[in-house]
């Protein structure tokens, strides 16, 4: 008999927190190295187990509710999601953020809101976290480097966040900025990118129901290396659009210049929609490696979210607006 997993099963339902905390304590006690060998030994392309958490006292998000738009695809492990990151503020290698992001202090944290809106000001993270029920949403994440993961995010719709500030009719775009602080983000002592990292969305993209204000993953507050304490999650765009550790939100009339477009405009554009038909100059975007799988899989238009977002780009030449 084929037993199919319910499509939008919450990870907190799959594994009760109490149980995986116990398991983690056990694993931690057994020693991190031993745990890595035991859980991953020979299981090169199989493991989806809960592996010892980076942050053993990670705070669980209370009252997590099941959100819409789930996927029944196999999720990447907590370890995959938290040890393979592009977050140049902590170094340019994938393993750097996990190793060095402990210097980031996600509390206290505040976000400055400015530009074309009725309620500019400074808002602190404790309040922001209470503005809407926090949902779990299992999304595909496709990096421009042609790898992908499936991640159980926690957060609430970006629209509920942005509406608080009452954007005016002149607000056509929203720009986000990451913290700049070489003490907290030692990678910023290197000119790897022009700091601060900044990203932007068109207002209708930002207000789209799929667009998430990310506050956690795997039912816990965001680990530092994943962009604590708050980040953007736009699942139909390449990962670099989903800016981390946001400190500033600006409503603008004109299209903001995002960091990677500024760096290499031939390779990265403003829209950065996942699009298998438009190749990156250095590699094909037609296929991707889902972490944990041996063979590549075909990349889906808009990362498989086309039925919900394609209408945002009706009439646009996506070859030019890459």
């Amino acid at each position: 008999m084929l037993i199919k997993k319910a499509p939008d099963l919450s990870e907190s339902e799959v594994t009760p927190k109490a149980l995986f905390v116990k398991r983690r304590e056990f694993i931690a006690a057994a020693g991190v190295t031993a745990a890595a060998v035991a859980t991953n030994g020979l299981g090169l392309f199989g493991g989806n187990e809960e592996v010892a958490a980076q942050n053993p006292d990670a705070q669980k998000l209370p009252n997590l509710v099941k959100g819409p738009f789930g996927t029944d695809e196999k999720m990447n492990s907590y370890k995959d999601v938290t040890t393979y990151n592009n977050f140049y503020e902590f170094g340019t290698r994938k393993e750097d953020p996990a190793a060095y992001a402990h210097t980031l202090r996600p509390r206290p944290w505040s976000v400055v809101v400015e530009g074309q809106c009725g309620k500019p000001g400074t808002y602190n993270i404790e309040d922001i976290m209470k503005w809407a029920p926090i949902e779990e949403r299992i999304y595909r994440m496709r990096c421009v480097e042609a790898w992908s993961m499936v991640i159980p995010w926690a957060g609430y719709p970006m629209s509920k966040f942005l509406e608080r500030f009452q954007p005016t009719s002149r607000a056509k775009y929203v720009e986000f900025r990451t913290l700049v602080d070489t003490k907290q983000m030692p990678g910023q002592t290197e000119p790897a990118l022009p700091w601060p990292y900044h990203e932007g969305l068109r207002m209708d993209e930002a207000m789209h129901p799929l667009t998430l204000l990310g506050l956690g993953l795997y039912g816990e507050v965001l680990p530092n290396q994943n962009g604590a304490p708050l980040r953007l999650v736009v699942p139909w765009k390449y990962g670099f659009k989903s800016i981390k550790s946001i400190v500033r939100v600006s409503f603008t009339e004109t299209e903001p210049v995002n960091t990677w477009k500024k760096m290499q405009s031939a390779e990265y554009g403003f829209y950065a929609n996942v699009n298998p038909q438009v190749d990156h100059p250095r590699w094909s975007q037609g296929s991707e490696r889902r972490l944990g799988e041996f063979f590549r899989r075909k990349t889906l238009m808009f990362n498989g979210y086309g039925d919900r977002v394609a209408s945002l780009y009706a009439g646009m030449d996506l070859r030019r607006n890459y």
Partner: protein
Amino acid sequence: MRNEGLGTRDQLNSTQWRRRVFKPVVWLLCLAPLAYLIYSLSLDLGANPIETVTNFTGIWTLRFIMVTLAVTPLRWLTGINQLVNYRRLVGLFAFFYAALHFIVYIVTTFFIEGFSNFDAPGLVADLTTRPYIIAGFTAFVLMVPLALTSTTGWIRRLGGKNWNLLHRLIYITAMAAVLHYYWKVSVKLVPVNPRNYGILVAILLGWRLWRSVARRRASEA
């Protein structure tokens, strides 16, 4: 052949030292990265094991090319001409790691969702339009004739002069391999590792150029 058996009390002559001691040591050193790779397959290779294996075989190819190129300058420096006896072995291992790197790239990039679905247009597009792939593929392809003509028989057939000329292809391979690495990592940032390999290749090749120019001048004078 009187002294073939180990444990003889006779002193080993230089040929025997080479055969019984140095050659096996060089073999073991050349196999060490492969042994480490196989060993680490049983450990944790991180979230993206294929990338780890690809990078590992790529970087060791580059290192073996560097060692191969360093043999001649080392002879000049130290006067130990016997070093040339190990150059072929190191060069063949460079080819071996390059072949592993190439196979991993082909298999894990162009078979989509299984061995029955090969993305030939994707491969053609990669080989014709992507500079870093073109550089890497050039480096690899130019190593093939070098590996094939590495035997003593081929040296005899081609004649030392022609053989030496042919094997200068390794200079192009070395430059293309560094470009491949550099373009893979970035087109704009100047990453430290590709830059350092670039400097090393510039020294190893520049040295040869400088010497040949100096010699020509000396013979003209």
